[in-house]
């Protein structure tokens, strides 16, 4: 490529989606992240590996972010963070301390020129080019449901529950311990591997049979080798039923289908049908085989049989789902990449100059920030 081209070219912004379990990182206007790495940090102080978002004090979090971003910039992306633009995909209801600390690290330690915060659910929906939809993000710690109508998030209808990858891992561990497996082998990475490679979400008929207490013929058991040391047997019922914790029937009515239906019902009447016909499931936990068809079958069943939903959802209800482009675990990142690829990065970013003045990040929840923009 000619020299002038490289000189003239604007440096592409860096897009980060920092999750509890995995961090997706790459450059704007690229179709997939460069890397997906565990959100773990090797502390420069004592060389121990630690989860990024596990901290006791503010300074500790700050130092962990410094080490983590240092690794991202110099080991994975190989760019100088100074004077670069950053896009961060964030949960709209994420913790303020994490957001503030991240901004402080980026501005103070890495001297970036601007940061653009992109709401996760909106970013995910942007990859579809549809204005309306109900976005279900299934992450590691929680599952969140956010209805979006005409590119506006309906915040009052937001729903979340604490089942995601972590809850599944705990369930696998519980069932394996019950089956008499030595607990010392069951580290988080082994549990994750078992989940990813052997488990699936069963169909509705079989799940109903399980609930009635008449389990159908279980899928074949599996022999699983742990670190080349020991062979454990993974029961077929475990493979089939670990994801049932998301669909459990109980009086709280907080299983995944209920969560989505509740979110839809919390929206104004006029937008409900549009949402029903545009459901979008993203996040790492959504990759699992059979999840979508099960969710659809359960919701269809509830809409037809459950008294409460039957009354409120009238007419011919057909739940329709969107397919992601690329894998579900980086869909939100992809939205951030699209955002960073447009001129929005110039107009909608928080610049260093603005940050110096106030020394804090504007937040949608803060009324004084809204007054300033109006």
């Amino acid at each position, binding site marked *: 490529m000619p020299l002038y081209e490289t000189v003239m070219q604007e440096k592409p912004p860096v897009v980060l989606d920092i999750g509890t379990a995995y961090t997706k990182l790459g450059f704007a206007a690229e179709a997939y992240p460069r890397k997906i790495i565990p959100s773990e940090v090797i502390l420069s102080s004592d060389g121990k590996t630690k989860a990024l978002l596990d901290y006791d004090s503010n300074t500790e979090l700050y130092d962990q972010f410094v080490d983590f971003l*240092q690794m991202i910039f110099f080991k994975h992306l*190989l760019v100088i963070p100074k004077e670069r633009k950053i896009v961060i995909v964030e949960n709209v209801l994420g913790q303020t301390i994490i957001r503030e600390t991240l901004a402080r690290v980026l501005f103070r330690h890495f001297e970036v020129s601007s940061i653009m915060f992109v709401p996760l659910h909106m970013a995910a929906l942007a990859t579809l*080019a549809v204005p309306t939809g109900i976005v279900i993000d299934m992450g590691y710690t929680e599952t969140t449901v956010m209805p979006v109508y005409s590119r506006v998030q309906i915040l009052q209808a937001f729903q979340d529950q604490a089942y995601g990858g972590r809850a599944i891992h705990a369930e696998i561990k519980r069932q394996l311990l019950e089956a008499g497996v030595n607990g010392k082998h069951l580290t988080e990475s082994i549990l994750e591997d078992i989940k990813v490679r052997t488990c699936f979400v069963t169909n509705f008929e079989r799940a109903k049979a399980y609930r009635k207490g008449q389990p159908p013929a279980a899928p074949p058991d599996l022999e699983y080798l742990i670190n080349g040391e020991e062979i454990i047997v993974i029961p077929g019922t475990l493979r089939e039923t670990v994801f049932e914790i998301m669909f459990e029937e109980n009086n709280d009515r907080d299983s995944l289908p209920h969560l989505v239906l509740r979110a839809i019902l919390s929206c104004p009447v006029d937008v409900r049908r549009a949402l029903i016909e545009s459901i979008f499931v993203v996040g790492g936990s959504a990759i699992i085989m059979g999840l979508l*068809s099960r969710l659809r079958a359960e919701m269809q069943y509830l809409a037809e049989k459950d008294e409460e939903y039957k009354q409120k959802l009238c007419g011919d209800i057909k739940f329709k*789902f969107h397919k992601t482009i690329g894998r579900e675990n980086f869909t939100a990142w992809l939205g951030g990449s699209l*955002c960073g690829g447009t001129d929005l990065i110039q107009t909608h970013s928080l610049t260093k100059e603005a940050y110096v003045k106030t020394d804090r990040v504007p937040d949608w929840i803060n009324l004084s920030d809204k007054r300033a923009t109006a």
Partner: protein
Amino acid sequence: MANFMQNSVVSYACTCGLVNPITKLFFCRHCLKLRCGFCVCHEVDSHFCSNCLENIPSSEAKHKKNCCTNCFNCPCCQHTLSARATMVVVPKKTDDSPKEGEGDGVKAVTKKMYYLSCLGCRWTSRDVGIPDQNVATGAWPENECSYQTRFNALLEYYQAVVLQDKQEKQEYLRRKTPKAHKFPSLTDRTGLTVSMIRRQIGWPDKNTQKAKPVNITPSVATDELEDLPADVFTQPINLRNVSNIQQRHGQPSDQPFTVNKLYPQRRILWIKRSLRCRQCEHNVIKPEYHPTSVKYRIQLFANYHVPDVLLVRSEEVLHAGKSGSIILKLTNPTMHDMSIKIKELPTLSEELEMIEEFKLACKIKENTATSAAAESLKSITSSPSLTSTTLSRQTSLIEDPRIVQQKANVKLNNSELNFVLNQRDDSTEFDEDVQTPREEPEFIIWRKSNKVSIRLPFTTDESLKVGDLVKVGFTMEYTYVNTVTNTPTSHTLSARVFIDAGQILGE
């Protein structure tokens, strides 16, 4: 350097307040301050491949997505792949044979073909059906992203939408701004500026083209979802064929579920870093370009400039509230004599004062820099309105210095120890004549060329319990001769040193 790989018992407090062994510290010769990895600015200096050790210019590295063109990693175990050659018998092309007249229509010719193989896990590129190549490097097929066209369409669409939005906003703003003059000016009367009149009427400017909205087919939702295949309930799965999460993440664009879709991954480049002092923006570390060279062009490591303190031994068994002493060996790494003063650590309030002073110094530097820039600008443009901060130096935020977390728990017996550390002179090692013993203070045990051993007596805190670590801390003031300036100038600098002296023993 005895503690290069291990945890050091002697550590120095950096200017930013973090505590590090001297091997991890740098010394900025321009600010005359200690710096550590946390408080210098890291920069990417050069890219290279860690396998073939080829230097790759940064523009090319960016173009190649930070990957080496020749080297591959195994998609299964992330080990480096090696190209293997085989001899393959291929039939000679038939169109050559008529020229040679009769003879066999098909003559067998052996040809060298290459495939990639992992020496770690025995994976080969033949496993996934990649055909063997004629050349060893450069011709391996690229793994294309399946939805690239869709992504490009989306990106184009959003760029157009944002552009249109921007133009509409500008248009709106222009109409809203009140006209500067109530009455038409001379230029209007001449009728020269058509565009101006157009603007007054409110028509759009002729030359500005309106951004056309790009159409995009939105994603269509469907209620026909793939059900679970029936055989998942009956057929056993072979774990060997299912990729694990690391293998999936190694190929982020498609993340295959089965191992037969794993393709060789291009090896990611490594970088050489240069470090820059944040305060004066001089380099403290700058490596040489060549990847095989481990030397530096600029290397301001602290142990070339700051006296190195080594713990020789602890003299007495340590008890809480009792006196003890340690023997230290100090080395002068510079070419100039140093006079050293060892005294108590600063108290908390003094430390806070130091931090304030540091901040103030930064601020003053900032201001002088901006005002200097403003001055120079003023002389060029002669318009004071332009001399705002936007044109001059970028506003910079600095990392706040911290209070040192490490606390000493002893009290030094002597308020001050003063002595001289001779310059480093490699030739003295070979001197025949023994140095004439001179009058030494009693705490000096031994002295040879640029090294000196001293005894440091102290009293441990009463509050210490059995098994607690005794931390000896002191401020070491030393004279440093700055050779950066034309005329060498001498400065008195100080470093805060912390030493693990051992545990408190029971009675």
